[in-house]
């Protein structure tokens, strides 16, 4: 994993080029592009790897419950994106388009195989890298994934008791 991390960090300049071109490439190969955000195949798989990394420590341990909690949260992320203004939805679509492209994924995240089988350690490592990255674009991408994942989790009443939040007054809610 150390090697992957180092080569990822060295990929800086090339990474910037890919990043600049990535949205365009994605749009070129996915025309006609829908006006509203769509969470399809590999993009959903990317979230399937990112959400558990963001929520490590908050997710339930039981495998079945955990899988359902992740699926519900991904749906919540999808809903949150669908409520954003269309130009912002386009930005998020470009980010997921980039994550879905295998070469960009390898270069920018260091995640070697597909998202479905991604190693949780690798996913955490790339999020840490993006969080403090010297490219503002990757830091903002991290910020979006952070807010979408954590926001979708803590928006759910089912997850309030674990943090000691009683929720609003039931008589009025």
């Amino acid at each position: 994993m150390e090697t992957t991390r180092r080569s990822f960090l060295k990929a800086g300049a090339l990474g910037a080029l890919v990043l600049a071109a990535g949205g365009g490439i994605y749009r070129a190969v996915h025309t006609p592009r829908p006006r509203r955000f769509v969470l399809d195949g590999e993009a959903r798989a990317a979230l399937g790897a990112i959400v558990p990394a963001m929520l490590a420590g908050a997710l339930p341990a039981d495998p079945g419950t955990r899988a359902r909690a992740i699926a519900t949260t991904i749906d919540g992320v999808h809903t949150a994106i669908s409520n954003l203004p269309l130009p912002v939805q386009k930005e998020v679509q470009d980010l997921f388009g980039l994550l879905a492209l295998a070469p960009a994924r390898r270069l920018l995240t260091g995640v070697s195989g597909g998202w479905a089988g991604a190693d949780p350690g690798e996913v955490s490592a790339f999020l840490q890298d993006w969080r403090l990255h010297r490219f503002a674009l990757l830091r903002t991408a991290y910020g979006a994934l952070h807010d979408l994942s954590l926001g979708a989790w803590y928006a759910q009443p089912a997850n309030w008791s674990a943090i000691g939040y009683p929720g609003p007054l039931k008589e009025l809610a």
Partner: protein
Amino acid sequence: MNQAIIPDPILLGRARGWHIVDGAGLDADRSLEADVVIVGSGAGGGVTAEILALAGLKVIIVEEGALRSSSDFKMREADAYPGLYQESAARQTLDKGVKILQGRTVGGSTTVNWTSSFRTPAPTLAVWRERFGLADYDSDTLAPWFDMMEARLHVGDWQAAPNENNGLLKRGLDKLGIPSGFIRRNVNGCWNLGYCGMGCPTNAKQSMLVTTIPSALDHGATLVTRARAERFVLRGERVDELLCSALSDDGVAANGHTLRLRAKHFVVAGGAINSPALLMRSGAPDPHGLLGKRTFLHPTLISAGIFPQRVDAYAGAPQTVYSDHFLGTSPIDGAIGYKLEAPPLHPVLLSTTLNGFGQGHAEIMRQFPHIQGMLALLRDGFHAQSAGGAVQLKDGAGVLDYPLNAFLWDGARRALLTMAEIQFAAGASAVQPAHETARRYTSWREAKREIAALPQQLHLTRVASAHVMGGCTMAGDEQRGVVAPDGRYRGLANLSVHDGSLFPTSVGANPQLSIYGITARLASGLATALTGKPAPRVSA
């Protein structure tokens, strides 16, 4: 359940026959005509609508958001942010360095604000007079307007004890010998719930939604909702009409139908960012390149204190204690000063504000009931190094380019240090500043050393704003402002601006009451100009 306990003034008004046109319900283009069209239903638009309607003028109010009211306000962040805020409460500056909370619903930000009510501070007005030629903007001249609007909106001292979140701010300040004050609030019969930011479920908050807008509608005004003001059609030095796009049910996309609104006079009150953006899209005259410039944010730093006792920062009146001490430690045009307040904490707001992810993030979230939140609002716009941001159009929408510079970062560092010191003085067992590389510090000694060394940089330091001001600067001459001191837009004979975008600097205090008082005066002047009669005085 809700409807049975709390009467909903909007449902009652609809039943009385209010004129409401919902853009999302249109199946064809539509034209409407009035004496005055007001763009925006927030602090400036609401006040203006009531005064003009009471003056006997036929008024149309256009709002981009939907008409939601107490029956809809269920105190859930998942519904409130997409339903009631600009860009689902995820609006950001161009470089994504500052997160911006602005309302987008009938009542605008007043429907979702935290009720803090301050008159425009005298030192701010002094700068407006001296540097922007706003000769009659002084505390004495404005006092009757503030008196009138405070009475109209039940602004008064908060009678209950501060909640623990605010109490800790007070106790920490007391311990350090730093003066503080209590915040006045625009509430009537407040239940002390703590959910002001999600729309008041009991109609106690005297927002525009339950005061001026219903009054205007009772006096024959028309409210157009889910309609985005696209552009004014100009003819010579006059506005001919306003073109609006009707929106889909969820308010995200245009539904293909257009509303044409014609009037003798137009008032822009869409709030900072949106107001200058509308004028830019319309090609409004801007001979000195000022439109959209000098937009201010009160860039806000955040510190989380963890206490042995429960704080329950989600419960109780959200903002009741403040300190202006650090606005006065340097001259107003010196190193940037800051106002201290406490924010309410709710799970989505807190979890997205706290930096980091995974185990560390989950661990601090489990401390939720023990977390005290503190805010420092930087008073921007008074120094040469604090010229604010510039609104630009991106895909037709207004976006604020607000560069964070060394002058602001210096203030950020001092503010994070101050807040940590206060939290430790109040008995915090740990303090974690909202900063990507900050750790959880367990003593003031450690925090002092570590916070001083934190890199203050874009995306590393968390910066937020709930107060967007400026961009349609009001000034005594056209070299300094696109709007005249009477609110008239220079170069367009029948256009006024009545909202926080007028302010030539930030206010240095939560801006709602500044907007109420100043736009009440502007709207009264406009009513007299349009009717030839004395303006009506509003009352509760």
